[in-house]
């Protein structure tokens, strides 16, 4: 369990490039960075709370599965990891098709944010973060797939929490640091390292799954 949680955190950490590009731009535009660290932190806490909640749902939803199903869950998670790795390696964007699946849900949720934008207080930012946690994101689904392997409400939620915590450093980086980070992440070398690391995780999961069968 601890190893799984750490891996989830690591996935969050190395996929920072994706976070910076999409969510980072959003937080800049919505001004969370400029409102001070409390607002930014509140937004991110909101986002991570949603992740944990999703983990809880998935974990609870799958807890009835018989033990025999566990290896297949791991294989599914591994597949998702492969997809995201391929995305990083510039080899294919199938992951974005999976993202699209959740689009109808997002269309319903997005209007909610209007009520709290522009967010001036941490409380509002937190609520915006709660909604933004539902943003269709391949990375989140991958992590969710991974969390599903626990098939237990508490543990799945914990893994999503770990994943969310992993994304924090990149999201909280402000000023010059994030500029450097961004430039560094865009290098193809970096992307290769990230892609290969994700593939390694996928392989590790698959090996576990095969051993269990």
């Amino acid at each position, binding site marked *: 369990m601890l190893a799984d949680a750490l891996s989830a955190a690591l996935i969050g950490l190395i996929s920072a490039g994706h976070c910076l*590009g999409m969510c980072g731009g959003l937080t*800049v535009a919505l001004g969370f960075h400029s409102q001070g660290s409390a607002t930014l932190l509140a937004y991110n806490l909101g986002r991570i709370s949603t992740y944990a909640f999703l983990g809880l749902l998935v974990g609870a939803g799958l807890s009835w599965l018989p033990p025999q199903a566990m290896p297949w869950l791991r294989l599914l998670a591994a597949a998702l990891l492969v997809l995201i790795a391929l995305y990083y390696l*510039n080899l294919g964007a199938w992951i974005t098709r999976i993202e699209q699946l959740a689009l109808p849900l997002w269309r319903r949720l997005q209007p909610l944010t209007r009520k709290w934008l522009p*967010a001036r207080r941490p409380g509002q930012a937190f609520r915006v973060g709660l909604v933004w946690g539902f943003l269709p994101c391949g990375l989140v689904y991958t992590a969710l797939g991974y969390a599903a392997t626990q098939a237990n409400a508490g543990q799945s939620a914990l893994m999503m929490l770990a994943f969310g915590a992993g994304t924090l450093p990149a999201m909280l980086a402000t000023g010059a640091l994030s500029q450097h980070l961004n430039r560094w992440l865009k290098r193809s070398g970096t992307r290769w390292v990230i892609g290969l690391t994700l593939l390694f995780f996928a392989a590790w999961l698959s090996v576990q799954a095969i051993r269990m069968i």
Partner: protein
Amino acid sequence: MTLTCFHCGLPAYDARFQLTVGEAPRTFCCVGCLAAAQTILDNGLGDYYRFHDPDQTPAAPPVNERDRERLALYDRDDVQADFVRHDSDVERSATLMIEGISCAACSWLIEKRLRQLPGIQQAHFNQTNHRLTVHWNATELRLSDVFIALHALGYRAQPFKADAEADLRQKTARQYLLRLGVAGIGMMQAMMNAVALYSGNIEAQHESWLRWTSLVLTLPVVIIAAGPFVTAAWRSLKARHLSMDVSVSIAILGAFLASVWATVSGDGEVYYESVNMFTFFLVLGRYLEFRARSSVHASGNALLQHLPPTCLKWTGERFERAPVRDLAVGDRIQVLAGELCPADGEVRAGRSQFDESRLTGEFAPRDKVAGDSVLAGTLNQSQPIELEVTRLGPDSSASSLVQLLERAAGEKPRIAELADRGSRHFVLSTLIITALIGLVWWWIAPERAFWVVISVLVVTCPCALSLATPTALAQATHSLRRQGLVVTRGHTLDRLADITDLAFDKTGTLTEGRYRLVSVEPLAGAGTLSLSESDLTELAAGLEASSEHPIAQAFEAAVAHGTRLPEFSDRRQHPSAGLSGRFEDGDYRLGTARFTLDQAVEEASDRRQRVWLSRNGEGLAVFTLSDEVRSTARTALDELESLGLRCHVLTGDPSRDVDPRLADLPLQGDYLSGLSAQAKLDWMHEQQRNGRQVAMVGDGINDAPVLAGAPVSIAMSSGTDLAKQASDALLLNENLRVLATAIRAARKTRRIIRQNLLWALLYNGLALPLAAAGWVAPWQAAIGMSLSSLLVVGNALRLRSF
């Protein structure tokens, strides 16, 4: 082929995700980026894409030549002298005020964009006060580049002139926050302890661990958060003076040291949670008081800090941009629409509307035409307008206002002095009482003596007593200032609460004070000299030239702009009568019939304002003027009446009957006309002898002696000549209803101060015996004291509205 995501700049594989941004369809890499862009656009933040590259680094739109030229002025040494600091040979730093912060993303954008400039060493934007601090290398970058970069982003930057006092206030505020934070962490320790203790049986080694962690957590609280109390106490002791800090320090240090001893020796009681709570609430109370006090200063200084550094100055041929510091009184300047007026001035050409809200609290724009005065720090809203500079820098209205506010803050009203003295005596008596109680307990039960002493010290801390008054006064002053009433003396609020009567001057107070020339009726003398109506008006205007009486402005407005007025010699003002002066071979007089004419004339009975012009005692013309009653007069009088005040009108105008324009005003008090300044003063004294407290409301210039003699004087001031004002309060906008608000505020202030003092005394009187009896543990004492002083401060903060 490479498609890139419009939002994040990463490669997009195909054109599946599209959204129209602005006019053009854009491609996105994934649903997430598309949704992010959608949200940004939905929130009206589309500018984000204009000013940012996809990797979130700001992009720079072009700046036109005219603006470049204007901003290049900031490279001049004389302009920079005011606000640029030379940190070393090549390093410079400056603080700029940024206007136009509309969306929250602005500060991020500003910092990012500036950091891209070569030679910028540091750029920090403070979101709360809109100040940007930049450090740059003068060999690599010109200051104008910074301004151009900001301009390109759509922000207006202005140099921020360092104000030592404001800086100090900010530093103090930061220190308070640090102390609060540290003490807050200490509070968490207190809670942790409480939880641990209430959870029940703790083993001995756990308890020891708990004590040691508490010690570690409390140490910074004592040093950082409570340190200033100790140093203040030490200072006051050296000055042979007992302040509240003395008893506070004894309590905190005593409890802390005893706890440390108990922790180290493993024997005895610890009081860490009491130390923490006591410190936290003390700092919180002081911080709230500090904030209330400093808000008054901040609102005044904001005016000065916003004055522009450059302006358009007439060079004889055209208007050129010049540093404001080069201006002199008498210079002709142009203020463009959207610019702040850099100095007090008088309109010479053009007409426009000015937003004076920063000065007066009144948001409706004011029309300004030739002859009107325009004040430094007010905003030109519609048209370019030409002004002649009348007052500059420290003489300007804005500076005077700040000085007045500071004078008021520096003076302590009677009630505050009383409370101060009270709390001083109080400290001494508590210390003595505490010592006695300690001795008694030492004799009865030595093991309890120590904590009883601590409890007594804490519980009787006269924090509430000393916080009560300053907080209330500061909050009330600040709230009134925002409505346009400037309290200029420390005693004003105190005395306003006692007021039973209000005496109004008529002209310029109940009426608008702007006369308009309605008709000119030539008399026989004009025929013999063959003077036309406009000649007569010019004569009158010449005689009134540079007079500040409202009637003068009517004549000035009536003559065509640029007309050469006859120049009178030996011009003299006769209070309540008129003006006299010599021109060519005649003695001219302008004013009442009695004053100007040799033979008595029958005064018309319709009571319109009439002014006679005479030459050597022979009537030349009768001018009819009108001046309207202020629109707020009626409701204001109604409101004042409902507060139980009698309103009187004292006017120097000679007509004996009630002015028909005032006839339908709900006046309960006297209507006295034809009064000289001396007569008004006598009336005032008579009222005082009858036990009535009269507040005089006048226009501030003509009524100066009466205002000075009244218990409370309020001057209606359009903001000009603030420095000359001797009154206790200034009403900067024309809304007479603010007077009722002021009375309400003063009464509420007094009520709240009394409530606070009463509470403080009751609480201390009740808590002291309990603590002395040993029924109050130190932590309970800390809570009691803190709640008491927070209650007092919270009560004072109610003065935000009336």
